[in-house]
Every structure is written in structure tokens, then in C-alpha cells.
């Protein structure tokens, strides 16, 4: 049994135990802590072990269907380990931040966590897809039953959108499985086998590759809230209970991006470079950064603002993928980690404010820092991270992404659309600085609103926040801590060409 299987199944088993009557909070916290230690251990080991040059470490596989070949196969490289680390960090914080006494809440968080871990750590296309879908039911139930505001509507919207998106994705994945099948025609869903037969430009079916890539882009893109398939995200995150918002926006949404890097790029290597595909992607990500950026500027509530800003920042990660080189993809993974941590932290604080204040309207709030200096500090760090201040995790990712689009820049030939898009999206940084700093000032400083009082969390409850802040700082100051591991894995992806 590979340690990865334990990591994937532990939250599931804990959720079942809770459902059968085990105490909710203790079980969930225990499982999350153990999982964090396990993943961190594997991460450090992977980092130290230079012998795992190959693609996937800790491999293991159990066949579940003999024809077509489907196996519960797990394996990890730097990218999946980085995202697994993100998952367990956010899971622990989300479980810790859960205020409800009902056991259902803890079980739901663990199930979402299991889905995310399975999606990141499986190397069989079928299970990779299946685990992500597994997280849909708890997400839907939690939003519909325990959400805020227009919760029913938001729950339906996220379910239908993600449901249709994943079916489109499924069609794209089946296409890939068909086109990249090994010679002899035996169908397999094993990613490692498929990777040995990528659909290159000179392959017999190469003319279908761009269309297949586009289907994958729409499928994965819907899951990541790529413009114009984004309209489920903001209402869902605004309506979701705090732990679900943290887990979904921080972790689960990264699955679509991970899928593009893990499946679409290696299996359809030349399709991403097709002009019409690349142009389409650039237009869409500009929609995320500029259109949603302006939408975010005009939000009047903290939760909807955070939700929209989360949608907006996905644009940068797509830009890194669109660059189609090692630096850009490295930056994209790094930013996925940074964004996941910072947005989870922001939603965590947002949840506390909502619980204690009952309102999140900017116009009614102010001066919270006086009574809650710790909360104000943490919010500040997370907000600064999210707008890309140097020294915090997101910065290095964003810088790498912006640089990566200029790798092939020849001044004599002028700007291509990729570079124009980069220059336009740089304005997004300004936009996000405007809305984040404005929100920070409005909420925590200035005139204290009468009758509203927020206290700092107790010392025990500060632990998860400190944990996430520490992750932001460590990666921000020393990005190589992650990059060495990510690059070792992605290096092979781009060196092979």
C-alpha cells in the first residue's frame, strides 16, 4: 500500500466514522493533523530524494476494470505533492474554523478534502476525474442547507454549472484516451501510459488535437471559473458556509488548472500552440482579469468582493499556462499554492466577521482593528499576499508568469497577442490593489461603527491562521522551497519536446 492511498482514504474513513457516530470535531481534527504530517513528510522526502528523477513517486496501482483498462492508480510528483500540501493545510484550517456543532459539517469538509486529494494524487484519468466529482455532493448540500443569503439558488447554480462542465470535460478526456491509446489499440486510462503516446503535430489524428484541447479547456475552465463560464463562482462562495468556501475556492477549484497541466499539456503538446486555441484562451483570461476585476471594484460586501477577486485571480494562472513554457507553468503552480492559502485565510476571517457582526456591508463597518488587532494583522497579510506584495507567496508566482510570456520576445518582431495580453493583465494588479486596500482600510481602520464589535480569536483558534500565514511567508521569502520540487517535475514535461 502506498502512503498516498492512506492520505486519500484517511479523510474518507474519518467522514464515515463521523457519520457512524464518532465525535465530529475531534475525529476531523485528528485526521486532518495526521494527513498534514503525512503529506509534509512525503514532500520533504521527495525534496531530499534526488533519485526520484522520474515522473511519479510512491506509485501503486490496483486494476478495477480489465477492459477498457481502469485502475485505482496513485502516484505523485512535485506538482501533485505541492497541491496535496495545499489541500491538507487548508483542510486543517477549515476544520478548525468550523463553528457548528453538527457533525454533518465536519464530514462534509473531510469529503471535499478526500475528493481534492484523490484528484491530485491519482494517475488514472478515470479516478482523477471521479474524485473531483465526489466533492460535488457535500459542496451542494452544505451550500443549500447551511449557506447564507440566496443559498438555494447559489447551490443549484454551482451544481448545474459544474455538472455540465464536468460532463464536457469527460467527453474531452475520453477523446484523449482514444487518441493517445498505445499502439495495438488497447484502451487504457493510465496517465503514465497515455503520456508515452502524446498526440504530436505529426501524429495521424493530429488535426483533432486543437478541438480536443478546446473541449478540455472549456471543461476544466468551467471548474476553475474561466470567463465566460465563471458566473457560478461568486454567488456560490458568497453563500457557502466558511469551511466550504475555504476548501472550494482555495483547493478544489485548482483541480481544473492541475488537469490542464497534468493532462491537456502533456498529451496534446502542440494543440495549445494552435493560434485559435491560444487566442481564445487569452481572450477568456483577459475577461477574468479585466472584466471581473472591474466587477470586483464595485462590490459592496466583503464576501462577494472576495469571491469575485478569487475568480479574477484565476486569470493570472491561466496566463502562466498560456505562456506554454517551464517558467510560466512553474509560476502557475506556485500561484495556485499562494492563492489557495491566501483566499482560504481571507474567507476564514470573513466567516468570523459574519458570525460576530451579522453583516458584511462595507458601508456599515469600520474601525475593527481597535478590538481585533490580530485579526486585522492576519487579514492584512492575506490581502497583501493576494495583491502580490513581494515577500509573500503569490508575488513570486505572478512575477514568473509575467516574465514567462516574454521568453520568446523578439523586439524586432514587435508584440504578439500573448505579450499584449500580459501588458493588459498587469493593470489587473492595480485593480486588485485598489479594491483590496480599500476594503482593508474601510473594515479595520477609520471611524469605528457604533454597536459593532469583533473580538480576536482565542489562542487555540489562532493556530490555523498562524499556520497559513507561515506558509505564505515561507514560500514568499524562499520560493525555492516549492519551486525546486515543482520544477523537477515540470522540467521533464518541457524538456521532452
Amino acid at each position, binding site marked *: 500500500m502506498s502512503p498516498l492511498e492512506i492520505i486519500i482514504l484517511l479523510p474518507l474513513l474519518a467522514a464515515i466514522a463521523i457519520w457512524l457516530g464518532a465525535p465530529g470535531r475531534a475525529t476531523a481534527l485528528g485526521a486532518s493533523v495526521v494527513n498534514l504530517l503525512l503529506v509534509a513528510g512525503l514532500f520533504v522526502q521527495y525534496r531530499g530524494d534526488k533519485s526520484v528523477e522520474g515522473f511519479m513517486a510512491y506509485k501503486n496501482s490496483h486494476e478495477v476494470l480489465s477492459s477498457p483498462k481502469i485502475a485505482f492508480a496513485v502516484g505523485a510528483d512535485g506538482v501533485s505533492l505541492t497541491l496535496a500540501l495545499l489541500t491538507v493545510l487548508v483542510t486543517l484550517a477549515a476544520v478548525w474554523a468550523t463553528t457548528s456543532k453538527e457533525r454533518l459539517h465536519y464530514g462534509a469538509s473531510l469529503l471535499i478534502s478526500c475528493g481534492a486529494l484523490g484528484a491530485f494524487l491519482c494517475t488514472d484519468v478515470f479516478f482523477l476525474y471521479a474524485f473531483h466529482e465526489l466533492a460535488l455532493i457535500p459542496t451542494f448540500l452544505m451550500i443549500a442547507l447551511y449557506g447564507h443569503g440566496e443559498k438555494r439558488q447559489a447551490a443549484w447554480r454551482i451544481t*448545474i454549472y459544474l455538472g455540465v462542465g464536468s460532463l464536457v470535460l469527460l467527453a474531452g478526456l475520453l477523446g484523449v484516451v482514444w487518441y493517445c491509446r498505445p499502439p495495438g489499440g488497447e484502451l487504457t486510462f493510465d496517465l503514465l501510459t497515455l503520456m508515452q503516446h502524446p498526440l504530436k503535430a505529426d501524429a495521424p489524428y493530429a488535426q483533432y488535437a486543437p478541438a480536443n484541447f478546446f473541449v478540455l479547456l472549456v471543461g476544466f475552465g468551467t471548474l476553475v471559473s474561466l470567463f465566460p463560464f465563471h458566473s457560478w463562482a461568486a454567488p456560490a462562495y458568497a453563500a457557502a458556509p466558511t469551511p466550504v468556501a475555504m476548501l472550494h475556492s482555495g483547493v478544489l477549484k485548482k483541480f481544473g488548472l492541475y488537469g490542464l497541466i497534468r493532462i491537456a499539456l502533456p498529451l496534446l503538446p502542440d494543440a495549445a500552440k494552435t493560434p485559435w486555441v491560444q487566442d481564445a484562451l487569452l481572450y477568456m483570461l483577459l475577461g477574468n482579469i479585466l472584466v471581473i476585476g472591474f466587477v470586483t471594484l464595485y462590490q459592496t460586501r466583503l464576501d462577494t468582493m472576495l469571491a469575485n477577486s478569487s475568480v479574477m485571480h484565476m486569470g493570472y494562472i491561466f496566463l502562466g499556462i498560456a505562456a506554454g513554457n517551464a517558467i510560466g507553468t512553474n509560476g502557475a503552480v506556485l500561484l495556485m499554492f499562494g492563492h489557495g492559502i491566501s483566499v482560504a485565510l481571507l474567507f476564514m476571517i470573513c466567516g468570523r466577521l459574519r458570525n460576530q457582526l451579522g453583516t458584511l456591508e462595507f458601508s456599515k463597518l469600520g474601525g475593527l482593528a481597535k478590538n481585533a488587532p490580530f485579526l486585522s494583522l492576519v487579514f492584512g497579510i492575506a490581502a497583501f499576499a493576494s495583491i502580490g506584495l513581494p515577500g509573500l507567496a503569490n508575488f513570486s508566482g505572478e512575477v514568473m508568469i509575467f516574465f514567462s510570456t516574454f521568453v520568446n520576445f523578439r523586439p524586432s518582431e514587435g508584440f504578439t497577442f500573448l505579450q499584449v495580453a500580459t501588458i493588459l493583465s498587469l493593470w489587473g494588479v492595480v485593480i486588485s490593489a485598489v479594491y483590496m486596500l480599500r476594503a482593508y482600510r474601510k473594515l479595520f481602520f477609520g471611524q469605528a461603527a457604533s454597536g459593532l464589535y469583533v473580538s480576536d480569536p482565542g489562542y487555540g483558534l489562532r493556530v490555523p491562521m498562524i499556520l497559513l500565514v507561515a506558509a505564505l511567508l515561507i514560500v514568499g521569502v524562499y520560493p525555492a522551497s516549492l519551486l525546486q520540487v515543482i520544477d523537477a517535475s515540470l522540467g521533464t514535461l518541457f524538456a521532452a519536446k
Partner: protein
Amino acid sequence: MSPLSLELALGVLGLVLLLVESFTRVPRKTLAYGAIGGLTLALLILVFGGASGQAPGMEEFYAVDALALFYKGLALVATIATIVLSLEYAPVVNQYVATYPEKHKEAGLGEFFSLPVFVCVGMMVMASAKDLITIFVALELVTVSFYVLVAYMRRSAASLEAGVKYLILGALSTGLLIYGLAWLYGMTGALTLEDIAKSLKHWEGSTAPLLFAAALVIAGLGFKVGAVPFHIWVPDVYQGAPTPVTAFLSVGSKAAGFIVLTRVVETFLAEGSAIAQPISHVLLVLGGATILLGNLAAIAQTNFKRLLAYSSIAHAGYLLIVLGCSPAGGTGLTPGQIAAFYLATYLPMTFICFLLLSVARAQGLGEEIASLRGLALSNPKLGMAVTLALASLAGLPLTAGFMGKFLVIFATVLDGLYPYLAIAVIGAAVGFYYYFRVILSLYSKTEGEAAPVKLKLGLPSVVLLVLFTASIVVMGVYPDSVRKALGDKGAAKAHVATAVEKH
């Protein structure tokens, strides 16, 4: 033990149960347990290979291949589950059958427990039938028993109405089917499917009369499986029939219809067949229409039973589409195997939903979705099983239902049938909506409402629930468990090929 002796033994079991019912005063529940015991024994014999091997002298009209054994197993499981549900539902039946239900707690229940056994025999014969006469006789044994079962609650207007509807439309479909079979015999001069396949391969002359015959047969079978536009009876009959019978109809009768359809379609679509193209097209169009109508009509339903009826129409659509796919598709499974797999996954999830409905109705709740509000909160374990079943019906991954849909979608992708792929995707997305609406209702609680009822389940129901819930998960994560029982692709294809080559 020859395979047919299993069917004979079960026929005897049914007769014995009837006689015991008539001439002794044993408690009626004992009859039910007797039926369950006998059927379970038959299932064990089937599973452990006691009933395999060809029946000597019957090769021409009685197939005992892996697919037949698989469907026999399905029929047995469905029947056992139906009787378990009937045990829970007995008070309701009693109330509508007995003249003085308060005095005679068990009046009128005897036949209700033994008739399913006869249906089971019919379905098991159907699984093996490969000539026109056997198909017809077996089908009638199933259908006539169902006429009685649907109208069983004679003091309930709904049940009677459903019975009449089912009788009239069923008789009409039988007429169509037998007319089609007659044409088929007239055109090919053959009664067995093998000879018909051979005849189709070397067909010279016009295909119009053949297509006419095939159309009538498909229409007749389309009635049985509830395909659009032959589905109109489904919602009313499902709603009116006693709930266990509805479950039996939706799983057992449908599976029986599909095994026959599979064998007939395999004959029509066999390599070199003169009418393969148009027939495959007809199946795809029927399937597409069935998916769309079933799913879209399900959205508007407020009655859970009726919703399941429309959803069962929708599921039939997926099966029709896969039967229309090319027999040599690249998935590694024949369309017939995929359909069988789909039906195997459909069985546990449907029965769990109907179990909830049976128990809820017998303990004073209605069948409206609204009347089931909050049930999962007061019955967490039952609620979890039903949630899982509904998620599986919606096709959520790592459940059995996803595996079935996945294979269907895979087959359409490999055949390049993109319009039907789109329809399947739209249907699945709509399914998310109406199944999730039920889940939501099960977990919803309004302030100030009376606390939801705590339901009591009998031991057989609990066992059934545990086994079916487990099988949803097992088939979802380890599909090979079922896949192996279906035989390998080589053998299945060889079966079709020999049917053609032998002559």
C-alpha cells in the same frame, strides 16, 4: 443440474406457495420468507456454477451463455428485493384488499408474495430465449403476472386504473410484437435468431418488409421498456401500482425487455446484416428522444414515485443508445454487455429509493417529495443510503450509476455519435437537478415544523439496504466485479459471430 431445471424448480416453488396459501393457515409472512429462501437458494446455485452448461437438445432455442446467466441473476435479485419490499408494504396492501383489514391483518397477502416468483420464472426463461416462440411465451408469462400485480390493490382506484391502463396498452404492445414476429418469420422462414441472422446476411431483394417487421418488433419491445413514444403508460402505471410492484416493473420487467431487445438487436445488427444501418439509426433516435423526454418531464414532478417513473424512462434511453452503437465498438465491451452492466447498476439504486417509498407509505407518510422532508435527519443511516442511491442515479462518480453512464458515453464517443453524446450529456445534467432536489428535501428542516418521523425497518429490509448500498459503492469503484460475470468480450463476440457463421 441443467439450467432449465432451475426455472422448473422455481415454477414448482410458486405453485407450492399458492397451495400452501390456499389450504393451510400458516402466517402469510412465512410464505414470503419461504419465497425469499427458495429464490436465494436458486441464486446461490446460479452464482456457484451449479446451473451452467448447455441444456442438451435445446441449443437451438435456449441459450445459456454468460449474458443469460447474468440476467437470470438479475431477475432473482430483483424478485427477492421485491418480496422484501412487499413485506414492508403489506399493511397498505392489506388495507386495500381485505374487507375488514382491522380484523384480518393478513387477508389477501398470499398471492401477493407468490406471484413475483412466477414473474421471476418468466424473466429467467426470457434471459435464455433465442427463438421467436420462446421469447413470446416467456414475455407473456411476465406480462400477465404483472397485470395482476399492478391491479392487486382492488379497493384502490389508482391501482385499478393503473391495472386497466397496463392491461390495455400491454395487450396492444403484445399485438404489435406478435405481428412483427409473424412478419419476421414470414420473411425469413426462420424461428430462431441464429437462422434469422444468417438470412439477413444473405438477403437479396427489398429490405422494406424486413424493416416493417423489425419496426413492429422494436415497437412491441419499446412498450415493455418504456421507450418514447411508447412510454405513455409508464408514469400512471408506476404511480398507481403498489410500490414494490412498481420497483419490480421498473427493474425486472425492464431488464427482461432489454435482454430480449439485446438479442434481437444483435441479430439485426450482426455483421453483414442487410438492415443494420437503419435499425441502428432507429435505436439511436428512439434513445435520444427517450432521454430528453424522460429527463425533462421529470423536472416538473412533485411526486417521488412519478419522478422515478420518468427517470426510469430516461435510463431506458441510455440503454437504447448503447444498443444502437456499433457491435465492434472500441470500449472492450459489446453493447449488450454495457446494457447488462447498466441494468445491474440500476437495480440497487432504484430498489433503495422504492424501499424508502414503501416504508414511508406503510408508516403513514405520502409519496410526495415534500412529505419526505427532513427524513434523512431523523433516519441518518437510511438517509445516507438513499442519498447514495440518488447520487448514483444522477451519475456521480465512484457510484455504480456513474460507471454505467460512463460506459454508454464512452461507446458513443468512440462511434463518433456526437449529437447523441450531447443529448446524453444534457440528460445527465438535467438529472443532477431533479435527483439533487430530492436529496435536498431529505435533509431540509423548516423551523417550527413537527419533527420528521423515525421509520422502522424490518430485518430483511436492513439486510437488503446494506447489501445494495455496498453494491452501489463496489460496482462504482470496482466495476470488474460485475464485468467478470458478463463473460469476456471475445466470447460474447464469438457468440454473435457463430450465430452468423454457422450457416
